[in-house]
């Protein structure tokens, strides 16, 4: 069947991003060396246009329809995730302007790679076929591998990229293996067909178990769940900070998008079989991430472990396999976008000349002379720790609600204990900033862009905490999966 005009219209945002990325790659040669900011500006423009189209599509009849013989779906669920991706991309690019100048990163392909990755994420969110999802996943990952190694003078960056490529390739292999088994058992790679086949067959065969394990490995790797997390700290630490910010928010959310869709749509009939497995992974992830974060001395590494911990909470939202569970994860991703992007923007803001801004010690006594910056970091830290009135609290609250609604009180109790542990390393940063005397003068960026991203982060982290009703209703209304 030839793709019709309807199919084209439905993937218009993806097309816009992909074409723009290709064009910008060529335009880059026309720019003078070192004058690549313009590429970034165009990348932002591209993402904005795609966002506008996505929002417009929400109002049309195409909503909820499938394209390309069911390979692709345009629904509220994917649109919500795409909004997260657009925002993540735009905000990361904005903080990149300053960072690339400070670090002397020259290549304009930096921004185009982000666009390619964005395109991959969008395909993932909209994929309704395991193959589409896989293609999206690779399209998202490959540019990020390259971006991780962009600081070619820094050994950590190269090492991180190397690790990421090898482990990533490995996990993709396992994922593909799982997908192939599912195809073997059900005769299809399309999620509804898989669900139907599982529903008819019923029961757990060892082969299905193997397939589930394969999928959990593959997806778990991308969301950085224990025990597939080992790459996270090194990659997060080594990558250029805006890239770390980008991948801790965008690709992670994308991985959750497919995790949720595949497990609650395709694998719902074998719910009992994956539920325990995911629960174990989620609990291990929360505790491992939050406990190991305590001993970190590098803030990027600490945020990496914190991001592992947060993946654990979000995975809990998968367990109820209800619409509320799904909505709670999406909400959590929105919240995480603002607070984590904000925290990384602060890290970028602290990157100046000889000051790496990456050591937690660099924040000692920051509040003395940089009140606004410290206050911002305080908001992000308390939000990550989940203290009201910040958004982080409402995010966790929503997930707990979804859990308890399905009677999973024990898991909610375990999760709150984990978040009490987590509070320690977040408040330690606040402690250093406010309660210690500075040992040297702090240098900070003089960049409007980075400041803007911090402001956006604060607004997001407060507004979603004080007035969460609107977004929750929106997500709840449009993103039913089950």
């Amino acid at each position, binding site marked *: 069947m030839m793709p019709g005009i309807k199919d084209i219209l439905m993937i218009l945002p993806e097309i816009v991003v992909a074409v723009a990325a290709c064009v910008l790659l060529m335009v880059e040669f026309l720019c003078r060396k070192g004058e690549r900011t313009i590429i970034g500006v165009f990348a932002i423009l591209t993402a904005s246009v795609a966002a506008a189209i996505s929002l417009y599509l929400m109002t049309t009849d195409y909503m909820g329809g499938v394209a390309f013989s069911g390979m692709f779906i345009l629904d509220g669920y994917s649109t919500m995730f795409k909004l997260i991706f657009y925002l993540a991309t735009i905000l990361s690019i904005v903080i990149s302007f300053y960072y690339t100048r400070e670090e002397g990163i020259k290549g304009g392909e930096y921004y185009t790679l982000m666009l390619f990755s964005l395109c991959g994420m969008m395909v993932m969110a909209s994929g309704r076929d395991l193959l589409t999802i896989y293609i999206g996943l690779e399209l998202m990952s490959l540019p990020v591998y390259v971006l991780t190694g962009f600081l070619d003078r820094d050994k950590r960056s190269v090492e991180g990229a190397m690790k990421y490529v090898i482990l990533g390739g490995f996990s993709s292999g396992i994922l593909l293996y799982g997908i192939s088994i599912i195809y073997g058992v059900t005769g299809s790679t399309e999620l509804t067909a898989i669900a139907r086949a599982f529903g008819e067959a019923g029961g757990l065969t060892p082969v299905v178990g193997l397939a589930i394990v394969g999928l959990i490995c593959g997806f778990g790797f991308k969301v950085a769940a224990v025990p597939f997390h080992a790459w996270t700290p090194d990659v997060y630490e080594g990558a250029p900070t805006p890239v770390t910010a980008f991948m801790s928010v965008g690709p992670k959310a994308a991985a959750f998008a497919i995790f949720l869709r595949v497990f609650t749509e395709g694998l719902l009939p074998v719910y009992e079989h994956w539920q325990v497995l995911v629960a174990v992974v989620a609990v291990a992830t929360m505790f491992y991430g939050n406990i190991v974060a305590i001993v970190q001395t590098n803030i990027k590494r600490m945020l990496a472990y914190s991001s592992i911990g947060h993946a654990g909470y979000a995975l809990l939202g998968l367990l109820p396999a209800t619409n509320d569970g799904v909505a709670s994860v999406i909400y959590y991703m929105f919240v995480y976008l603002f607070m984590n992007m904000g925290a990384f923007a602060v890290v970028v803001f602290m990157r100046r000349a000889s000051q790496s801004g990456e050591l937690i010690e660099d924040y000692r006594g920051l509040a003395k002379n940089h009140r606004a910056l410290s206050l911002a970091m305080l908001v992000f830290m308390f939000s990550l720790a989940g203290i009201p009135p910040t958004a982080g609290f409402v995010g966790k609250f929503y997930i707990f609600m979804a859990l*308890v609604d399905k009677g999973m009180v024990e898991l909610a109790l375990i999760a709150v204990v984990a978040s009490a542990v987590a509070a320690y390393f977040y408040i330690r940063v606040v402690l250093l900033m406010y309660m210690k005397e500075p040992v040297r003068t702090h240098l900070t960026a003089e960049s409007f862009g980075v400041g803007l991203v911090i402001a956006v982060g604060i607004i997001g982290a407060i507004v979603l905490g004080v007035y969460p009703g609107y977004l929750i209703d929106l997500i709840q209304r449009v993103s039913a999966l089950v």
Partner: protein
Amino acid sequence: MSWTELYNHHLLSIIIFLPLLGAVALLFMKNERLIRWWTLAFMVADFMLTTCLVFKFDSTTHRMQFVERYGWIERFNIDYYLGVDGISVLFVFLTGLVGWICVLASWTAIEKRVKEFMIALLVMQTAMIGVFCALDFFLFYVFWEIMLIPMYLIIGVWGGANRIYSAVKFFLYTLAGSILMLVGMIVLYFKAGGSFDIPYLMEQKYEFTLQAFLFILFFVAFAIKVPMFPFHTWLPDAHVEAPTAGSIILAGVLLKMGTYGFLRFSFPMLPDASLFFAKPVIVLSIIAIIYGGFLALAQEDMKKLIAYSSVSHMGFVTLGLFLFNKNGIEGGILQMFNHGITTSALFLCVGLIYERTRTRLLGHYGWAAKLVPWYAVFLFIFSLASLGFPGTNGFIGEFLILLGAYEEYKLYLVFLIIGIIVGAAYMLWMYQRVAFGKHHAEGGHEIKDVNLREVVAMVAFLVFVLWVGFHPVDFLNIVDDSVAHLISQVKGGELLTEAAVEAAH
């Protein structure tokens, strides 16, 4: 909307958010003098509004008054829902009173980062009043948790030598308790059919096992806040290291939130479990009374002594509450109020003398009666109030609790009396070591007696020490109906219907 309309229909919101408004405005100020006066003005205005609240309060009903209710998060049926009954209005008032005194107590004591400190105080005020006014469990929890942030900073930034350890301990301890409450709150929400509405939750019946489970979850949160033995270990650290205003807030208001939680949540919502667990809780209270008293007796540090006396006094309160009779609960509530007044006043006294001498060790004092006679007079009265001398507020509270205990089980009296005797011992001994020792001021430098600002702060406390001491009826009247209603909720709501309660008056 006109001002009078605002005043008539949104009084609670104004009281809650006025300090926050002041805090936001402070962000843009530079002059420290202006900042201090500005904060004081907002706190005093807030206090005056709480006074108006008490005068407008109708004490002939147990119903919630000054109710405000607006949809907030409709998805979960969460409302912005405020209201006060006889129990909470008393503590709103106490918070209002303590607020401006804290500013006076920090006037010269806080020298660095004045602006941040005042912002923290104001935010704290908003959160504390919010806790007492919230009638939506979610809203309550939000206010309850917000308090952690400014308090963490107040202890950690402006505290003493060991402040960081204490701040972190305070934060984690309280957080650990309250997140357990969060889970309990969500469980309750679903069992009650999807509501966080506190009055509605009180009317529902829950099976006993659920009640017991929730009681334990809530108990940990509240017992840490009170703090009850064996959850009290954060308190001496936090109290001792906190700046004077921080100690006053902790002793004056924060500790009351634990017992307020029992009154607002555990008792009416989980009556069977509350009755079931009453005995163990009373045993813990007795341990707290005596153990806390003896710990206080052994302290060399004046602030630590008062901190441990708090453990002992709050033991009286929890014991009174868990007796579940009118005298016990009213005594407990009154004692909560009294403790808020006297212990705050004592911490203020410690703060004043510390500011002058930079030491809190009792062994370094001993000249107060000679060198600072007015100070010694105030300290004497507050010490007497703390040990429950007739004519002061402490006497009335303890007496009511004793009456309640007598009705319930006479043996309790033995322990209570031991507690009171130990209380008298440590307070009087402390006073003796401060006022009448042999020691003289080191280096022979002049130590100034209390100035006008300090007198104003202490007289404010003194008024209530004597008012409650001589005419407690004014305060008991406020809580009377609410307590009667509470008891009917706990002890067989069916037997004692609302009509019967009304008839009883």
